[in-house]
C-alpha cells in the first residue's frame, strides 16, 4: 500500500491535517509512537482519575453562532458544528505582579478598565497598542521578524505593565526566551485577551476524540505504537518511512508534526545539517493535585492566575531546576459549566531547566520532582486558599516526561524559536505542521495542520 500522505504524530495538528486530506479523497496514514493520541496536548488515567496534560484552556473563544475568527474558521474547515467541541467560557483570570493586579475575562473591556485603574498614565498608550494589534494582518506567511518588546515600547513606557502584558502570552506560547516575535505576540494577544479562554467540561478528550472519529469516518488510517525511526529519501524526495519495528510504509508525501530538528534528524542520509541549538530551551515543570472541594468554595475563583513574585518577569531557561519567581496556576473547575467537575483540580506550572531534569539518575529524579513541586506550591501559596492536607492525589511532570512522550528535544512544549510558517522544509515533499510551523494553542495547532494541508498537499491533487 502506497499512501498519498503519511503524517507523523497524532496530535491536534496531524489529526486536523489528516481530516482535510482524507475528506478530499487522499489515502492518509497517521503514525503515532505513543500508545494514545494527543501529543503535546494529551490525557492519561492515573489511580482511577482522568488527567489532562498540555492544554490548560482553549484560547480563541468565540460564542456559539460566531461566524468569524480562528475558532469558526477551524470548525468550518474540519466540518464540525460548534457543539462538537462544546466549549464553556472561563470565569475570570488574573495577572498578579508585586503591587499590581490585572483581571481579565472573555470581555476585553474588563482588561482595559483594569489597566486604566492600575496604570492611568499608560492607558492611552495601551489603546494605541491595541489598534496596532487589531490592524496586524496575521494571514501572510512571510512575516518580517520584529521585536514585540520594541513595538510595545513605542506606546507603553511602564516596564511592569509591559511585563504584565507579555507574561500570559509568553507562558502560553513563546518558544523564544525574553522577547517574542511581534507577529506571534499579536496572534497570542488576540487569542487570549481579545477572544479569551474556554474549555470543554471533559478537557482535551472530547476534542481529540471528535477529531479521531471524523478522521476514521473518512477512511483515514491511524496507527498507534507506530513510531517513525527514519524517513527514507530518494533523490532528495521523501519516498517512505521506516517504523521502530522495521516495517516500511511507502508514501507520496510526508507531513511531520515532530518538530523541525526532530524531523530532519529522521531523514536517513540527508545532507541537510540541523543546528541542535535551533531546538530551543524554554520548557516547564507542572504538577497537579486533586482536592475534594470545589476551589471556588474555598475562595479560589480564578480560571488562570499568571503570577510573578519578582519586580521583573524573567521568561528564560532558569539556572535553578525550576524558576520559583513566576508561574501559572490553572483551575479547570473555574469555567462556566452547566454542572461542576466532580473534584477540585489545581495545576501549577513553572519554567524549568531541561538539562537538569534530563540528566538526573532515576531515584534522585523522583525525589527532586517532589521537592521542587513542594517549592512551586510555596511560591504560588500567596494566590491560593490553604490546600495543604486536602490533597487526594498529586502528579508531577518535567521536561523529561515531555521528551519521553512527545520526542521533543529538551521537552520544549512550544518547539523551536525558529518557526517555519509556510510549512516547507529543505526536502520537496516533506512538510511541517504543529509547534514548529508556528500556530500555537489548541485552535492554532489545528489551524496549523489545516493550513499546511491546504497550501501544499491539496493543491496538487
Amino acid at each position: 500500500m502506497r499512501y498519498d500522505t503519511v503524517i507523523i504524530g497524532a496530535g491536534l495538528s496531524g489529526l486536523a491535517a489528516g481530516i482535510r486530506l482524507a475528506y478530499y479523497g487522499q489515502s492518509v496514514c497517521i503514525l503515532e509512537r505513543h500508545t494514545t493520541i494527543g501529543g503535546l496536548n494529551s490525557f492519561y488515567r492515573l489511580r482511577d482519575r482522568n488527567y489532562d496534560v498540555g492544554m490548560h484552556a482553549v484560547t480563541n473563544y468565540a460564542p456559539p453562532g460566531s461566524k468569524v475568527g480562528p475558532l469558526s474558521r477551524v470548525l468550518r474547515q474540519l466540518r464540525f458544528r460548534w457543539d462538537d467541541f462544546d466549549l464553556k467560557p472561563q470565569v475570570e483570570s488574573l495577572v498578579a505582579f508585586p503591587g499590581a493586579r490585572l483581571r481579565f475575562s472573555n470581555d476585553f473591556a474588563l482588561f482595559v478598565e483594569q489597566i486604566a485603574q492600575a496604570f492611568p498614565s499608560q492607558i492611552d498608550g495601551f489603546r494605541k497598542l491595541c489598534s496596532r494589534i487589531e490592524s496586524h494582518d496575521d494571514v501572510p506567511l512571510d512575516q518580517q521578524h520584529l521585536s514585540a518588546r520594541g513595538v510595545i515600547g513605542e506606546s507603553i513606557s511602564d516596564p511592569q505593565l509591559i511585563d504584565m502584558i507579555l507574561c500570559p502570552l509568553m507562558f502560553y506560547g513563546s518558544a523564544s526566551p525574553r522577547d517574542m516575535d511581534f507577529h506571534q505576540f499579536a496572534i497570542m494577544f488576540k487569542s487570549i485577551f481579545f477572544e479569551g479562554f474556554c474549555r470543554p467540561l471533559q478537557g482535551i478528550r472530547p476534542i481529540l476524540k471528535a477529531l479521531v472519529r471524523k478522521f476514521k469516518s473518512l477512511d483515514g488510517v491511524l496507527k498507534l505504537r507506530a513510531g517513525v525511526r527514519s524517513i527514507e529519501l530518494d533523490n532528495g524526495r521523501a519516498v517512505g518511512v521506516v517504523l521502530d519495528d522495521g516495517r516500511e510504509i511507502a508514501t507520496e508525501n510526508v507531513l511531520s508534526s515532530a518538530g523541525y530538528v526532530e524531523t530532519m534528524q529522521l531523514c536517513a542520509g540527508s545532507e541537510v545539517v540541523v543546528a541542535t541549538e535551533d531546538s530551543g530551551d524554554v520548557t516547564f515543570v507542572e504538577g497537579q493535585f486533586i482536592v475534594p472541594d470545589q476551589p471556588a468554595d474555598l475562595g479560589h475563583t480564578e480560571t488562570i492566575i499568571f503570577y510573578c513574585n519578582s519586580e521583573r518577569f524573567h521568561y528564560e531557561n532558569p539556572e535553578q531546576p525550576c524558576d520559583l519567581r513566576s508561574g501559572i496556576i490553572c483551575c479547570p473547575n473555574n469555567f462556566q459549566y452547566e454542572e461542576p467537575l466532580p473534584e477540585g483540580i489545581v495545576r501549577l506550572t513553572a519554567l524549568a531547566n531541561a538539562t537538569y531534569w534530563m540528566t538526573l539518575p532515576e531515584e534522585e529524579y523522583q525525589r527532586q520532582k517532589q521537592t521542587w513541586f513542594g517549592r512551586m506550591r510555596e511560591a504560588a501559596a500567596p494566590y491560593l486558599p490553604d490546600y495543604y492536607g486536602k490533597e487526594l492525589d498529586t502528579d508531577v511532570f518535567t521536561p523529561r516526561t515531555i521528551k519521553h512522550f512527545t520526542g521533543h528535544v529538551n521537552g520544549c512544549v512550544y518547539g523551536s524559536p525558529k518557526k517555519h510558517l509556510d510549512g516547507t522544509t529543505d526536502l520537496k515533499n516533506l512538510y511541517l505542521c504543529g509547534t514548529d510551523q508556528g500556530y500555537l494553542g489548541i485552535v492554532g495547532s489545528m489551524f496549523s495542520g489545516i493550513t499546511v494541508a491546504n497550501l501544499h498537499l491539496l493543491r496538487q491533487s
Partner: protein
Amino acid sequence: MNPEEIRQAIIDILTRIVPDEDLSELDDTVSFREQIELDSMDFLDIVMELRKQYRVQIPEDDYVHLDTMDGTVNYLVPLMRDIQSPA
C-alpha cells in the same frame, strides 16, 4: 443537472461547511460573504467540493462568479448541464 438541482447541490455543500447556519433564508442575490461570512478558505472549499463530487474544474480567475447563489448557479449551468443529478 438543471438550475434548481445545481442550487440544491450548492446548498448541500454549504450545509457541510457551515452546519450551524440556517440556509433556508438565504437571499440568492446577496453575496455569501455578506450573509454567512464566508472567507477565501471557504470559497476554495466550495470549489474543491464541486471538483470532488461532480468533477467540475473551476479556474481561479472564475472564482469571482461564485459571489452570490444566482451568480454561482448561472456560472455552473453550462458546466454541469450534462451531469446526472445524484438524487
